[in-house]
């Protein structure tokens, strides 16, 4: 909003002084969006209807053939299902944790600033570095977690869980690492949302006789609905489209059990050289994301309180 506002203002000043200036100021943004967002997007749609392959120069229109074939592929259906499992589980955990954290961090206590800083840390670290760190933590031989569990005599040595090597554990690991990554972001949004609730409202609830849980579930959380849906919307899109965590931790394995749409598209299109099929998989995500965004914005709009 702010950026757009500033942009139009500059444009109008430019238009008043010299007609070329406005266009010149506007050009970088248009170029950026055109080259890096609109271009590749159009190209992906174009490829999705062709038989493009890496290493081949021939290109023919094949209609819906790519979509028909991916819809029939069991790997694709698995990836689609995994994407939903992955996104929904992550979002539920993230929202519960970040709501709790935002409540805990709202009260003043010594060292609150430091704790807030620590919680933000995963968000500022580059995701690839974080994911590589987690790969070590969950490694089959060097896993710190396994060592601790063995030390506590919860597991016998040589009979330890393979965090990234067993289908369900691998999915759980990927989900948890993604939660680790998204909770800070979500918490910051929630903290901002909570400060927008006037202090008298929970006080009035206390005087009306409501306890902690009633105030939380009937007053605070409903009043936070718009901000929670924004956090869910962003979180969903980040999770649904992300492939870094999956790619680094498991590369989709074992047996495609953690393959999601983005990582499957990458595996098919780039690693498997079938550009057209990869593009079709990516394009398949568009209507899904549009639907999610539409519903989230509607919820936010409905719940708008003031």
């Amino acid at each position, binding site marked *: 909003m702010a950026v757009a506002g500033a942009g139009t203002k500059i444009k109008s000043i430019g238009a008043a002084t010299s007609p070329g200036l406005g266009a010149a100021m506007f050009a970088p943004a248009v170029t950026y969006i055109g080259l890096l967002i609109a271009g590749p997007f159009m190209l992906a749609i174009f490829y999705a209807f062709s038989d493009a392959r890496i290493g081949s120069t021939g290109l023919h229109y094949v209609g819906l053939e790519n979509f028909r074939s991916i819809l029939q592929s069991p790997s694709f259906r698995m990836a689609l299902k995994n994407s939903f499992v992955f996104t929904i589980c992550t979002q539920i955990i993230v929202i519960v944790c970040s709501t709790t954290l935002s409540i805990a961090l709202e009260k003043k206590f010594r060292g609150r600033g430091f704790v807030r800083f620590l919680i933000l840390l995963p968000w500022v670290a580059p995701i690839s570095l974080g994911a590589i760190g987690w790969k070590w933590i969950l490694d089959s031989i060097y896993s710190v977690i396994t060592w601790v569990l063995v030390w506590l005599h919860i597991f016998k040595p040589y009979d330890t869980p393979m965090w990234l090597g067993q289908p369900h554990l691998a999915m759980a690991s990927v989900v948890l690492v993604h939660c680790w990554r998204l909770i800070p972001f979500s918490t910051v949004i929630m903290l901002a949302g909570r400060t927008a609730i006037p202090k*008298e*409202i929970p006080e009035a609830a*206390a*005087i009306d*006789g409501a306890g902690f849980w*009633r105030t939380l579930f009937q007053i605070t959380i409903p*009043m936070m609905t718009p901000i929670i849906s924004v956090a869910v919307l962003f979180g969903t899109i980040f999770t649904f489209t992300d492939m870094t965590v999956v790619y680094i931790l498991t590369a989709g394995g074992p047996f495609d059990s953690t393959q999601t749409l983005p990582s499957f598209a990458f595996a098919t299109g780039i690693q498997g050289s079938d550009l057209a099929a990869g593009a079709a998989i990516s394009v398949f995500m568009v209507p899904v994301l549009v639907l999610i965004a539409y519903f989230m914005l509607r919820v936010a709009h409905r719940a708008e*309180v003031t």
Partner: protein
Amino acid sequence: MAVVETRNLTKVFKEGELGAVNNVNLETREGEFLVFLGPSGSGKTTLLRMIAGLETPTAGEILIGGKVVNDMTPRERRIAMVFQSYALYPHLTVYKNIAFPLKAQKVPKELHKQKVEWAASLLGIASLLQRKPRELSGGERQRVALARAIVREPSVFLLDEPLSNLDAKLRLSAREELERFHKRIGTTTIYVTHDQVEAMAMGDRIVVLNQGSVRQFGTPKEVYDDPADTFVATFLGSPPMNLVENGEVIVGFRPEHFRLAEEVTDASKVPFRFRVENAEYLGAEYILSGLLIGGRVDGKKVIARLLLGQSYEVGTTYDFAVPERHLKFFDRTTEKRVDARALAWQ
């Protein structure tokens, strides 16, 4: 219904600084309408919030119905409070706002509808029950806040400047409505305001606060006619009481007692020469400000409030007088009220 009492109640927000509330002792009467009056920052809200249980006292005790409630939650104190901002729940309808305390206090569900409708009809908002707070006017919001407060029949009512968000006209009608409402339900009520007219009009008794201390506690008549110190004398009344120094004491008299000498029929009166510097015509009365001329009080600024009748010229000196029984005497150093005494004026 219950009596609220505070004993040496003190609240210090920052150690080492003067407290927001200092050593306050007061006791309401059964069913009384008690007003806390004081300028901004005098600790009225803090005092009220301690009684409500939203703020922990630094020292002292609070008693409701004879029981010490210091360690009780707001809910256990069985009080109701109307906030200055009303603090309605914005996501709930008026009906649900009013029903919220019933739900929170586990009143049987069958009774909700009947109680909400009783409270709503008492305040004339029965037709608004399905609206959200944002669809209401300021006056309607206030009534919803009141309805939410009375619906569970509290033992004490606390109101923090509930009229300050309303425009002047609405404020007057809301004030009358509140008074009528209090007469009807008869619950002990504590009302916070910084508006002395409101305090005089509504209060059975007034607690005048300044810098966290009680300056005077009495009926509107006592507080107005017998101010305990110069602060109370000048805070109540508009225009405020005239104060002139004379020897060891400060002498005060109200603008409405300062009149043309020939109109003062009292046998014992103090005469003054008064030069009018400015005259304001307010429709029903004149407000004259000017200087006393001659004697020990030469050059002191004073204000007179006169009914229409004669007209007064700016720049002219008149013979004015104050009946002796209307003079108030205050100690010059402590500014506390002292006994009346004979003084030399010339």
